[in-house]
């Protein structure tokens, strides 16, 4: 016991000292501190390229839940300069909480189309992803499903697989339907899809395609990049078979367009390295970084003219739902309530 506690005391003292030294050491000039809800394995290649080009070091915390609360609690002393989120809804919440500051940059205005950034520069879109329908190549006929609304139609009974209705991607889709058609229609849609489910909502987007491949259902909802990741999965080649069993349907091409989700960035109000932070966002919207997003993660770059991954390009172009993204994001609370009301997951 005695020796053990001696060890712990030493460890504790060492840790506290290290932490204090770390906290008190002055930050060197060329650094950007980043809170990111996008996975490090995805972002690191981009950050490394940035550091290589500019010499500016990027420190990161990968944090999803609790990012807003952390920024709020840290207040004016927060070390974060920049946030990256995988979903505009979360970015919008940060803006509404007054945690972001507006910036303007000619580079950013040139790189990002106006509808994919905040008018006052409180957030900037970096990539978009479409939420599409995956349909079995043989069992689903060409005209059976062309819209999200078709998923709620009687002929789809017992044929749909989907992940939890409470997942942010599905909440975001429902929010876009509220924006387009109103609360009552959105609720009827959610109820209709629920009635058509082949099984209780479960798993993730890939698991639904796997279920289609195995014949448990015929169609599912999923984000485009998962298709790319499955179709090129050398490590787990069976995923290629899943991907090969389905085709991508971009819904609602004749009316409002396919729902898209934006991953984005914003500069925090507390930022002490604002210039470097803006430079990083500029870099992320530049040709090199946009190409990494497109080639490495099968996303749609925001910068016009950047080449898509050949596979993504092979799916063809599509019309995106152009509804003002912040309006859609603000309907997420209502969308969640609708999912509760129709008991989508149960």
């Amino acid at each position: 016991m005695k020796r053990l506690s001696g060890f712990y005391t030493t460890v504790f003292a060492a840790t506290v000292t290290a932490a204090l030294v770390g906290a008190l050491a002055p930050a060197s000039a060329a650094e950007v501190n980043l809170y990111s809800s996008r996975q490090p394995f995805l972002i690191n290649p981009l950050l490394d390229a940035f550091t290589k080009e500019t010499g500016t070091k990027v420190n990161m915390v990968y944090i999803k839940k609790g990012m807003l609360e952390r920024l709020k609690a840290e207040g004016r002393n927060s070390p974060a300069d920049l946030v990256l989120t995988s979903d505009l809804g979360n970015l919008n919440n940060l803006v509404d909480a007054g945690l972001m500051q507006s910036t303007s940059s000619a580079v950013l205005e040139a790189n990002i189309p106006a509808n994919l950034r905040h008018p006052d520069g409180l957030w900037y879109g970096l990539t978009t992803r479409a939420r599409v329908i995956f349909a079995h190549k043989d069992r689903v006929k060409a005209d059976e499903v062309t819209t999200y609304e078709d998923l709620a139609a009687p002929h789809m009974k017992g044929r749909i697989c989907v992940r939890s209705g409470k997942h942010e991607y599905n909440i975001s889709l429902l929010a876009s339907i509220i924006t387009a058609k109103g609360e009552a229609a959105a609720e009827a849609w959610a109820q209709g899809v629920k009635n058509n489910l082949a099984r209780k909502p479960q798993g993730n987007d890939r698991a639904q395609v796997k279920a289609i491949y195995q014949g448990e259902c015929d169609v599912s909802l999923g984000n485009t990049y998962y298709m790319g990741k499955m179709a090129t999965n050398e490590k787990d080649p069976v995923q290629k078979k899943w991907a090969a069993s389905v085709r991508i349907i971009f819904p609602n091409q004749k009316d409002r367009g396919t729902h898209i989700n934006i991953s984005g960035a914003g500069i925090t109000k507390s930022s002490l390295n604002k210039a470097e932070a803006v430079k990083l966002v500029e870099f992320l919207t530049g040709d090199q970084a946009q190409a990494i997003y497109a080639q490495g993660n099968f996303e749609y770059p925001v910068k016009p003219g950047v080449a898509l991954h050949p596979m993504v390009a092979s799916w063809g172009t599509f019309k995106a739902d152009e509804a003002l993204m912040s309006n859609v994001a603000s309907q997420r609370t209502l969308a969640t309530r609708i999912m509760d009301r129709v008991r989508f997951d149960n």
Partner: protein
Amino acid sequence: MSWSWLNGWTIGTVIVAFIVILPIAAVIFIALTPSDDIWAHLASTVLPLYIGTTLQLMIGVGLGTLVIGVGTAWLVSMCRFPGKTLFEWALLLPMAMPAYVIAYVYTDILEYAGPVQILLRDTFGFATKRDYWFPEIRSLGGAISMMTLVLYPYVYLLSRAAFTEQSISVLDASRVLGRGPYRTFFSVALPLARPAIIIGVSLVLMETLNDFGTVDFFAVSTFTLGIYDVWLNMNNVAGAAQLATALLFFVVVLVLAERFARRKKKYHHTSSKYDALPGYLLTGRSKILATVACSIPVLFGFVLPALVLGGYSIIHFETSMNSNFLSYAFNSFLLSSLVAGLAIGIGIFMAYGVRVRNERLLKIMVRLASLGYAVPGSVLAVGVLVTLGAVDNGIDGFMRDTFGVSTGLLLSGTIVAVTFGYLVRFLAISFGSIEASLAKVTPNMDDASRSLGHSPFATLRRVHIPLIRASVLTAGMMVFVDCMKELPLTVILRPFNFHTLATFVHEYASDEQLGEASLAALSIVGFGILPVIILSLAITRSRPGHNKDAVK
């Protein structure tokens, strides 16, 4: 009686408890901030469902872990059968498996598109899922099974420590008075071990209430999932804190009810005669049954999932084994050891503080201080954020106003913050098991030691700690393993560029890439299990009266 030491224990205990209570109080404070009313909506839609599902989950996991944990603990402590010495520590192995990881693994194996059902379809010529019945893994039943498989070791550990610390004389007395082995177990050994078993089951239930990963993956609508839903999808942290507070209240009522039920009973041992444990020799059918009963949880809770993860790790070795991997493992190991040590120290301090100074205020304070375990991890992390943020910004504001210098954030976003968060969350484990164990030491021991002139501290060091050593080690081991697996607090409170094995798993698992996460998941199990085995052996040796050469 001199005043000074009394004050020392009291003031010390109160201060420590107060600091630990702060983040929990912060959650309640957040609950009181104005927000959209969620209760009317929830009550008319999903609240009854959340409550019903959560209660079923708790009952299922509670009963499952109770039966497996106590049953196997009794077998390996009291009986002799093939494999007993192996099972003593092997039964602990599933403990280091994060519940959501084995949920992923079993889904892969057992779902409609998995190998088991494909084999069934091929063998019997079924065409669709309507042709046959197979249990759905992504369900409430599935969640109960997954959690039972990885959580029963808590009950096993604590009951085994209790059985190990039990004086054999009372068991012998029961047998001499004509009770058979089963009646002795149910009417003597089990009631005596009740405080420890209750602590074990309540730790399990709190883990169950806390779980997010498994129920989220299975889309089982529990109360905790509801908390996250209100927080993240409805962007209503106050509403989420209200739900978390309601959950906390529920846990407090449960704990109080249990305490009320055994209010006047005392559990300290009346005899200090510690002979070697009996080692009833099992023969024939019971021998085989005992071996099978102990094998099943180890097989399904550890061996099978570890094999699957091992297979994935080999495929994805290059991706996972990057140069930083070892540093993540080092971080996990160091942090977990540190917190385990601190939790034991503080746990002993508080439990003993209450013992020597049996005051109402103290009791309430330490009780409140062990509530952190009942708050969902991410919500508790927000409580820690708010607490440390207030302290840091308070100091900074004072320094700016007074001296014109900014101190910035001293604690927020440092290792200290993570350590503090772990302690707030896991103190319940160490305090609970140490207190339960101390309760078994008769106060006559204290009196004897004190009347022989020892101070309370010397009494603690020379009398109590040797007697409760097994429980102290058990507590440290549980905290260590829990820290290795800990995710939400680490993610939310950590410094820049800081990773543990658990956060590494999370990075990939959150992008549906279990394969890439397998090596790290397996390492959590590996690094977590090493000290578990070592300590487990130490516990066997630590039994008072244990003597290797004793005739069995």
